[in-house]
């Protein structure tokens, strides 16, 4: 698989000459007469290339200025400058600006080819190195700030908050849709702060049966209940002076909410079946996909606990609201799974990149990650197409949900549904589309929330 080369020169003749040379060697070239346009396309992930060859002297921004701007973005694509100026100072300036190499006119094509190939080789080595570091980190079970990929304002704000709050012991409440990376943010807070030497303990409150959750959190004495054959140290103690991450805190029952509130207030716990109080040193970070203010209004969540947890709220936007992060995330996952599966040379086609940006990603980053892993393993060619990542039959997940699908053909084939039945089915459908978020559902259906709640209550009976 040959590389993709971006060529920048305001002289169309030279541009065509360069393109002709590389295309004849089966490289793919992208031509720009304006470095500013090339910079914009790269910044917006519209251009995906492996190396850039640019003229030194350009009208809007010079080749040097372009190089500096690329490096200031942290972009690692190697840049080769072509200059007519043979002075040493120019060469030094080019290298200081971050250029990989420079070529002096008249263009010596074999020399340029060698320079391009060396740049590509170096980029591959650096990428392999970075991927290995990521794999090592994955294998060691650690994450770092580099594990959070994104340049969108929403994610940058979340990361900035995480960085600032990491130095304190304040309770943090992370909210966001499922799959947005709430646990990664929690880990980031842990790793960046002084507690990183201590454990990071995570528990999903929705995945543990209620009758076992209390024991998990607080521990128990031997014989304290049927099945308690040994004493158990709970997670509050296990976390020591580290972090205890309580995911899906919105699913905690009211009884445990009351106990959690007491722990947060008094900073001590009692194991089930014991009278002794034990101090806790862990920092509590919680996360939820629910709207806890709404849950408070509905009396499903304690207001006093909500205020105690919500000292530092961090909201992670859904992936569809941070489209500029989709390609960097996709590239990250491609590299990650390539390393883990020992696969080399796979890349995304331009159509695929477009499809990635357009897809709604209702499952957010988790869905994107799963899709990339699947595509990498199943794609038969090196070039990953949009169908590999987003199979046609899954392009709209609403079509796979038949139980609540709003299908006119069913009305004509069976008995006619009553108006009430039709409305209920549509409400259920809308709720599913919005992943159970009632506020958004009411807004989409253009009814007030009270009406929606009333309807849902009626549907239960």
């Amino acid at each position, binding site marked *: 698989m040959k590389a993709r080369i971006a060529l920048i020169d305001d002289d169309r003749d030279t541009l*065509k000459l360069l393109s002709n*040379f590389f295309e004849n060697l089966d490289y793919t070239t992208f031509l720009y007469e304006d470095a500013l346009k090339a910079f914009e396309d790269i910044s917006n992930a519209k251009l995906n290339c492996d190396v850039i060859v640019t003229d030194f*002297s350009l009208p809007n921004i010079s080749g040097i200025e372009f190089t500096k701007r690329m490096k200031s973005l942290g972009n690692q694509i190697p840049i080769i400058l072509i200059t*007519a100026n043979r002075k040493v100072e120019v060469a030094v300036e080019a290298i200081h600006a971050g250029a990989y190499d420079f070529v002096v*006119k008249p263009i*010596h*094509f074999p020399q340029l080819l060698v320079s391009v190939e060396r740049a590509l080789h170096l980029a591959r080595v650096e990428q392999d190195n970075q991927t290995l570091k990521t794999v090592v980190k994955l294998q060691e079970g650690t994450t770092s700030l580099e594990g959070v990929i994104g340049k969108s304002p929403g994610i940058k704000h979340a990361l900035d908050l995480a960085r600032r709050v990491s130095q304190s012991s304040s309770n943090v409440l992370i909210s966001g849709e499922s799959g947005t990376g709430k646990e990664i943010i929690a880990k980031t807070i842990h790793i960046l702060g002084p507690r990183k030497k201590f454990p990071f303990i995570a528990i999903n409150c929705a995945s543990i049966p209620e009758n076992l959750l209390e024991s998990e959190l607080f521990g128990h004495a031997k014989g304290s209940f049927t099945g308690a054959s040994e004493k158990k140290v709970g997670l509050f103690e296990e976390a020591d002076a580290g972090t205890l991450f309580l995911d899906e805190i919105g699913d905690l029952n009211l009884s445990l909410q009351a106990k959690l509130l007491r722990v947060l207030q008094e900073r001590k716990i009692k194991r089930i079946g014991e009278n002794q109080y034990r101090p806790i040193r862990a920092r509590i970070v919680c996360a939820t996909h629910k709207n806890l203010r709404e849950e408070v209004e509905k009396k499903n969540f304690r207001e006093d606990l909500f205020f105690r947890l919500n000292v530092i709220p961090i909201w992670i936007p859904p992936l569809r609201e941070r489209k500029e992060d989709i390609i960097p995330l996709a590239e990250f996952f491609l590299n990650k799974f390539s390393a883990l599966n020992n696969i080399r040379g796979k890349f995304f086609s331009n159509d695929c990149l477009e499809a990635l940006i357009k897809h709604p990603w209702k499952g957010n980053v988790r869905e994107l990650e799963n899709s990339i892993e699947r595509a990498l393993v199943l794609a038969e060619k090196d070039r990953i197409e949009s169908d590999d990542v987003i199979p046609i039959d899954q392009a709209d997940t609403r079509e796979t949900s038949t139980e609540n699908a709003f299908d006119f053909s069913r009305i004509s084939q069976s008995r006619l549904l009553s108006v009430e039945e039709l409305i209920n089915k549509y409400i259920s459908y809308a709720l599913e589309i919005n992943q159970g978020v009632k506020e958004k559902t009411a807004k989409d259906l253009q009814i007030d929330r009270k009406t929606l709640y009333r309807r849902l209550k009626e549907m239960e009976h």
Partner: protein
Amino acid sequence: MSFSNQVPHEMKVVYIQRRLSDFAECSKAIATGDYSFLEKVGHQVKGNAESFGFDALSPIGIALETAAKEKNIEEIKKAVHDFGTAVANIQKTEL
């Protein structure tokens, strides 16, 4: 030294045709005093001629660019004249 044998013949033909067109525009630019255009042509020819294997055009491009920057009309006329002659000669003898 450029590797002119790397350049396909048809690209050389197109290149010279575009230079002939530039020559015609340069003559108009002298009449209108468009030094900016003349400087641009000189700069481009200076930069790309040798890459296409037309070494003789490069010093003419330098002369044109310099003259246009200095707004030296006499030197500009001389450079444009040399430019036209050289391009026509190339078309006649090499292509």
